[in-house]
């Protein structure tokens, strides 16, 4: 029973913070609310006996992705909100309707199917050791692929975000025309 | 190699750490309220007013130069209405009110610099905190007035110079006065003699 209550508390918390993350005006607030939602999800994973995933979620989502999002917001000056600018896109009503429809479409089969009432088996805690062994045997190929993907993503992100040479430095015709004065010219300029 | 400097530094600090327990000479600080270092002679904090003898004989003549010159404008002077004779016997005003707001005073010492009467000098007290930050930090004439002996104690060489000069002035003034008296007397004698002569001539 306490498990049940805590689930509802955290579920409501996750939904509230997620809604806040999607609704708040200031993008930094959105990012912080999203971090809170991710942390709440980690707790729910923990309740589902997936402690390894729960901690990985905390480590990666709260510790890394939220920080990345915040950096992106700050680097794109997202936190300077102009008063006139509209928050939502012009077709937000249509979008919202589609979202509600999507929720409805997923919820209907959940309600109608029988597995919804299923109760969890007694004890299926996955020890970390088992996860490690599985990763090194059955899931070795995905693991290696993942390592490759992360390396590629790391290098790719660094290359994309690398500062290109300023456009004015390349294409500004004035800067091309203006040439360095020679020593003679400088001397001539100085002498009366 | 990287780290050798850090190890050297660590050894040095460790030596300081243990050394401070072994030898007292290492400890350079003073336990303040119980032990106090004598301030340096030229140290200065807030101004003071010097008087000779008793409070009635302030050197200050309320001339207002310090009030004018004070960059922080923390001095307020009101002249007295009666004149008193100073150490040279001249008749001078004395301040009726002499206030310094030491919350504003910045201890620059310009007032002491410009004072032609050697009256305003710089004090060395530094424990100036009070319970009241307005009236407690506004020092009146009574708080500022200090005996010449006190001034001698804190600035011995300055005070000695000033006293020597003042004694010299006094001596000169007395000599001058004496000379003037003598001249007057001589003139009186002369004039009396002359008048006597005239009397004789007339007779």
């Amino acid at each position, binding site marked *: 029973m306490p498990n049940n209550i805590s689930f509802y508390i955290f579920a409501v918390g996750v939904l509230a913070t997620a809604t806040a993350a999607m609704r708040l005006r200031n993008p930094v607030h959105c990012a912080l609310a999203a971090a809170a939602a991710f942390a709440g999800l980690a707790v729910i994973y923990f309740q589902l006996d997936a402690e390894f*995933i729960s901690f990985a979620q905390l480590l990666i989502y709260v510790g890394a*992705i939220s920080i*990345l999002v915040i*950096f992106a917001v700050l680097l794109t000056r997202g936190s300077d909100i102009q008063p006139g*600018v509209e928050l939502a896109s012009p077709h937000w009503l249509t979008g919202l309707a589609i979202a509600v429809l999507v*929720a409805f479409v997923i919820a209907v089969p959940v309600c109608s199917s029988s597995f919804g009432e*299923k109760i969890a088996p007694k004890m299926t805690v996955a020890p970390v050791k088992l996860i490690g062994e599985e990763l090194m045997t059955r899931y070795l190929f995905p693991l290696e692929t993942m390592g490759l*993907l992360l390396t590629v993503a790391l290098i790719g992100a660094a290359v994309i975000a690398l500062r290109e040479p300023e456009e004015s430095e390349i294409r500004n015709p004035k800067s091309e025309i203006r040439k360095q004065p020679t020593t003679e010219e400088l001397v001539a300029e100085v002498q009366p | 190699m990287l780290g050798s400097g850090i190890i050297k530094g660590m050894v040095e600090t460790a030596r300081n750490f243990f050394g401070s327990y072994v030898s007292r000479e290492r400890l350079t600080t003073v336990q303040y309220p119980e032990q106090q270092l004598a301030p340096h002679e030229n140290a200065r904090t807030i101004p003071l007013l010097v008087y000779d003898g008793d409070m009635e004989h302030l050197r200050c003549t309320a001339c207002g130069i310090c009030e004018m010159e004070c960059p922080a404008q923390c001095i307020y002077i009101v002249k007295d209405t009666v004149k008193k004779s100073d150490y040279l016997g001249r008749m001078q005003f004395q301040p009726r009110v002499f206030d310094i707001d030491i919350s504003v005073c910045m201890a620059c010492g310009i007032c002491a610099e410009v004072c032609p009467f050697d009256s305003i000098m710089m004090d060395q007290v530094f424990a100036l905190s009070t319970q009241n930050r307005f009236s407690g930090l506004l020092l009146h004439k009574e708080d500022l007035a200090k005996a010449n002996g006190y001034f001698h104690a804190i600035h011995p060489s300055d005070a000695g110079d000033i006293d020597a000069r003042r004694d010299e002035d006094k001596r000169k003034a007395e000599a001058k006065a004496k000379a003037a008296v003598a001249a007057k007397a001589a003139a009186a004698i002369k004039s009396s003699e002359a008048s006597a002569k005239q009397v004789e001539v007339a007779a």
Partner: protein
Amino acid sequence: MTPLSQYLFLSTLLFAIGFAGVVTRRNAVIVLVGIEFMLNAANLNFIAFWRYGVSGAAPTGIMAVMFSIAIAAAEAAVGLALIIAVYRHRKTTQLEKLDTLKG
């Protein structure tokens, strides 16, 4: 113990919230956060089905979520780098202003 359907409803709502954010917000960064929510909703489903499933001994759901989290991290890094690069070029992250391919 909470029945499975509760977890599924939570995941559905989370997915819908993320989806609504993606289709309604203008700021590209927030849209990316919305996509993260949708991914998380899927992760929650994986974990819940694994926990309530029969194959408790094999950590299949956990494995799927682990790879999903790794992909999400890569996606966030690349996506945000793209947003920053686009911002440098266009000086905006408002999505409806980024409507030309030529730049």
